[in-house]
């Protein structure tokens, strides 16, 4: 068992501690089984974060991957932006200021 660092809501705090296996495990914890479509969004979030400096918003994911917002709601029901960030091992998206 490797240890990981999370915040009080369970979001990973270390970008480098994430792995694809861990993602599957995190997803399972919130009742999601990852399909190719889920992975498309997750991989985008992972790739975007280092250059962008923060977790992509739902709109950013949608515009830059071409996945409709509606689809993201189906894949990550309820609170897609938070759930995607959680599975991708990124900080909870800042509710804008």
């Amino acid at each position: 068992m490797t240890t990981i660092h999370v915040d009080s809501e369970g979001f990973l705090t270390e970008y480098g501690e994430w792995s694809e296996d861990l993602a599957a495990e995190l997803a399972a914890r919130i009742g999601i089984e990852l399909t190719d479509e889920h992975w498309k969004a997750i991989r985008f979030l992972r790739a975007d974060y280092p250059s962008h400096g923060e977790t992509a918003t739902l709109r950013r994911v949608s515009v830059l991957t071409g996945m409709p917002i509606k689809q993201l709601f189906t894949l990550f029901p309820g609170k897609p932006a938070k759930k995607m960030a959680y599975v991708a091992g990124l900080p909870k998206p800042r509710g804008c200021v």
Partner: protein
Amino acid sequence: MRRLVILGAGTAGTMVANKLRRRLALDEWQITVIDRDPEHLYQPGLLFVPFEPEPPDLLKSRRGLLRRGIQLLIGEVGALDTENKTVRLADGGVVGYDYLVIATGTSPRPDQTPGMLGPQWHRSIHDFYTYDGALAVRDALQSFPGGRLVVHVVDQPIKCPVAPLEFTFLAEAFFRRRGMRDQVEIVYVTPLDGAFTKPVASRFLGRLLDERKIAVETDFLVERIDAERKTLVSYDEREIGYDLLVTVPLNMGADFLGDSGLGDELNYVPVDKRTLQSIAHPDVFAVGDANDLPTSKAGSVAHFSSEIFVENFLQYVDGRAMTHRFDGHANCFVETGDGKGLLIDFNYDTEPLPGRYPLGRLGPLSLLRETKANHWGKLAFRWIYWHLLLPGRRLPVPNKMSMTGKHRPGEEVRP
């Protein structure tokens, strides 16, 4: 001659132009400002338009607000070519630059939500972020027979993120004064998970909504408006009916920024959050609402960050390292109705906290607490805006946030 071109002569563009004109030699620097519209609108005043019988005077000529020695071009910026360093106007004119400051702000875009524009626009579906919109809200409130008023935000970020809450408080007080509060149900619908973005202020403002019997619907991301059925429909298929809808449409930066490749998915220009320099092009800076800074889009931010920007810009054009750092400082008066208001003060790292805000001989003002003084502060701001802020004079408030007077509450926050 070295050429500085500033796109947009709103709050940030005007301040920056006036400050720099005083600091850059007239015989060495040409400063050109471009705006589509010859009149400058005092946007914070829009909040009060729906509740006043006579529209207040919120417009002034842009020319009169710019110092002598600044060239003002009236025209729509249609395209930007950062390779050749030219700006193309919609009427075909081309303006070249050595340094570019983007200050085109952000605008409400009702066209971005299906069903928003149409025969019901400015009839049962309203916005108050434009002058015409605010006037239409006034007429709708005057003739409202009672029913459900829904105040709604499409998505963040929006400029002045507290404005829709303020509108809600003012509308509640308005119906109470008219003696018809019991005939009006008020619902505040937000894409956020609480009344506001930051936890302490969100709990605090949430409590104020609660006390006033204003229902809050959170995590609601609108997909479309069914104007015929007078219903908001979210992506997760929740529905909220209304008799009168006052919405804040999606806010977006200018389209030419997206088209030129300089803007992000909402046409905001990615900048270094300490210096406001464009990440993509070092000779380009973006000030005010037009950039992607992770702080509020507000006049106060435009003001504090402009002071930092001006000092850095002077170093930059001199070939020196930029040594000034913006901390994300923002402060906003929040109208809460009945002639009272709150004040919030925060930056990138510190959320709005309760306490007191020192203000020279005038202060202190209370933070996160409803007082009459805060309401008067908000009203006085209009004079300050025209006479001190836009001319680029120094205000007696530091541009960096200070912890003096603030305290972090325990679990309980009491109004």
